[in-house]
């Protein structure tokens, strides 16, 4: 039996200034979301295990438990599956688009990393019912304003699409294990690993050329042109058209300096179906936000509607120096009052902060 005072790995306690920073940050971000007409949703902290196992995947990271009736339940490892389930059921007859935001703790059985524990805070938005580029652009703009509102200038949003690589790999008709091995070496941009894999796979010259190029397809508009010279299949080409349209809109809005096209990024949860992005800030070794499109997810809960969204990691954002957090250094100055409780009440009624000195 462990001692009562021990702290289980992966949990943390925020006190005083740390808790104030968390709340100030949370409020600032929520006000951005509300400014784009997103309504808050507060889903339950646990649900049936299947909701997350079918939606999110990553089964080995889910904290699960059994209730008294023998049902398998799980503590939420993320919000997206919960929100998708709600949209597909309770909100099935609501007019689209549906815009929702959430903020709260999630739990994953994983190594604590980059200031993120096993229990960590996520804040994000979900947009349902918008299939085209408009919804994609909308959520990217909300992410951009979130950074700006927090006074973070040096942020970088890396935008890719699962359809670009998906379109290439579809046509190769490789066995599943080989696709897995290919993704593994591309995911870490391992050139020598790729070369030895290509020797085994015996692809044609054109496909080898594509595979060698994929890890380097990161940058501005020219990346899209480069990618166009490599692929002909409809799915990849459509993905490139789509990314180019988004990029052009960002150029017109004078925001393209924050956007990087990244076709070499092939990581992501199984549920992603279109665009996929991760946001980085100079000085932090881990991404601070990620998101994308997951049109298939609501369908898993019975309502076929397109969906796109993102989430920020509050624990990671808190590590950045932010002007927006300056006001959280200390509590506002308080009037000190002896045991005169009536005076304390009067001061409180007049809006003053009081501190009883008993």
């Amino acid at each position: 039996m462990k001692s009562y005072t021990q702290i289980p790995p992966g949990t943390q306690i925020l006190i005083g200034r740390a808790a104030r920073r968390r709340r100030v940050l949370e409020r600032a971000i929520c006000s951005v979301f509300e400014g784009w007409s997103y309504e808050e949703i507060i889903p339950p902290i646990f649900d049936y295990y299947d909701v997350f196992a079918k939606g999110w995947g990553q089964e080995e990271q889910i904290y699960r438990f059994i209730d008294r009736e023998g049902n398998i339940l799980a503590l939420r490892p993320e919000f997206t599956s919960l929100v998708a389930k709600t949209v597909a059921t309770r909100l099935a007859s609501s007019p689209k688009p549906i815009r929702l935001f959430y903020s709260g703790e999630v739990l994953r059985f994983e190594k604590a990393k980059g200031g993120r524990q096993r229990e960590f805070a996520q804040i994000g938005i979900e947009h349902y019912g918008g299939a085209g580029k408009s919804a994609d652009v909308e959520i990217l703009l909300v992410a951009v304003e979130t950074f700006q509102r927090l006074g973070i200038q040096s942020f970088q949003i890396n935008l890719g699409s699962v359809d670009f690589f998906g379109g290439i790999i579809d046509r190769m008709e490789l066995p599943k294990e080989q696709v897995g091995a290919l993704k593994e070496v591309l995911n870490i941009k391992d050139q020598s690993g790729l070369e030895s894999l290509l020797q085994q796979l015996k692809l044609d010259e054109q496909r080898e050329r594509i595979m060698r190029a994929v890890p380097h397809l990161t940058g501005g508009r020219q990346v899209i042109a480069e990618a166009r010279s490599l692929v002909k299949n409809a799915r990849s080409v459509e993905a490139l058209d789509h990314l180019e349209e988004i990029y052009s809109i960002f150029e017109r809005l004078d925001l393209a300096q924050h956007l990087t096209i990244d076709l070499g990024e092939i990581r992501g949860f199984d549920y992603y179906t279109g665009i996929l992005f991760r946001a980085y800030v100079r000085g932090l070794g881990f991404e601070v936000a990620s998101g994308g499109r997951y049109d298939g997810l609501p369908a898993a809960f019975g309502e076929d509607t397109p969906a796109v969204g993102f989430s920020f990691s509050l624990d990671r954002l808190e590590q950045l120096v932010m002007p927006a957090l300056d006001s959280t250094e200390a509590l506002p100055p308080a009037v000190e009052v002896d045991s005169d409780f009536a005076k304390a009440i009067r001061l409180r009624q007049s809006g003053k902060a009081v501190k009883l000195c008993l």
Partner: protein
Amino acid sequence: MLVIALCKGRFLEPSLDLLQRTGIRFLDDVASSRKLIFDSADSADNLYRVVLVKPADVPTYVEYGAADIGIAGRDVLLETRADVLQPLDLNFGHCKLAVAGPKGTSSVNGSGQPTIRIATKYPNITLDFYNSRGIPVEIIPLSGSIELAPLIGLADRIVDLVETGRTLRENGLEILEVIAESSARLLINRAGYQTKRDEVRRLIQALEKVVAGGVS
């Protein structure tokens, strides 16, 4: 500025050699000094800082972004499972990660016991290797002189890095099966690859040229 984590020990000299051949000059003699942090002699916008750490810690420094770039053996990367980019094989420090044991034995049998006892510095790699074959093993974690373990009955087999095989031979052991080939790799933090893209790319390309040019 880019921060580069290098291993103390046998990787240090070839790592420094590679960096110097890309044109980086250091203010101090990195190999002989007792300092842990070294700055390059370049101009401020083209500055490199080298930090010296234990080989097994290089992937951690890079994964967390304390260093943007690192040089470490593939064995260490496989063992730590660090989530970092690994674009280049630097083509030195070639070794084999292998199961070894007394001559004429096999990697998949112990000494008659149902569970093979394996002494190693690489518990994760060892478990992955045997788990993928469904063979139960007992890991005996050691941090040095691994070859001793089967000689005095502490373990049936070892999993270790083998360079020339001389230590194995002199102790009556031999490679029973190779798990993976290892060599020095360039590691890059995922976020740094994006937020310091131009600086990072420049260094990768310079190193790529040096490596392709043949390392003596």
